[in-house]
């Protein structure tokens, strides 16, 4: 077996029983899903699911462990779109900062 096991490749390790969580997806989760499907649609073609996966696998072990499923997607989407020059880090930071002020959240 290879020693290059990524932190995402956890098959066979003992994590105990799988927690089953009932509930609806939240709006932000639906939006992240919709964004990825739009970006990967044939008419847009800005991202592939393989790129989404690669982005998730390179978020770093701490972010991977801390983020929920669609949190990983959102972070990977940002990472890949910045890498491709579709967004810049500055644009993203500015947008987040604006939304925080609008909603009265701390910086």
């Amino acid at each position, binding site marked *: *077996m*290879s020693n*290059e*096991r990524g932190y995402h*490749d956890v*098959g*066979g390790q003992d994590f105990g029983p799988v927690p089953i969580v009932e509930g609806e997806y939240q709006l932000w989760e639906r939006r992240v899903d919709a964004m990825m499907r739009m970006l990967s649609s044939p008419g847009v073609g800005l991202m*592939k699911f*393989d*790129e989404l*996966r*690669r982005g998730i*696998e390179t978020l770093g072990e701490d972010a991977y462990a801390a983020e929920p499923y669609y949190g990983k997607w959102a972070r990977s989407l940002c990472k890949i779109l910045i890498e*491709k020059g579709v967004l810049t880090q500055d644009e993203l930071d500015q947008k987040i900062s604006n939304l925080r002020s609008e909603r009265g959240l701390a910086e």
Partner: protein
Amino acid sequence: MSEALFNVGDRVLVRDLQAEEGVQGHVRAPVYCRGLIGKVERICGVFGQPESLAYGGDGAPKQPLYRVRFSMSDVWSDYAGEAADHIDIEVYQHWLRAA
């Protein structure tokens, strides 16, 4: 496009391209099935190579994707369930060799 080398029922071994060829980065074959022998359960279609698509490449040459059936007792040495239990894992042709 790579021609399909295997048929339903063929015995195949999952290669470890990270160890054999130094492939790095994004790959789809999970570590726990590498080196194991299973049987082709079906051919799922033909798709671009994830190692290329993950980095903005065109995925060529496209590879047949197989659903390979492994005995659970081959996968997990301490497996205590039914002898007939199995797991199906989808593996691209370039990660397989005849066994």
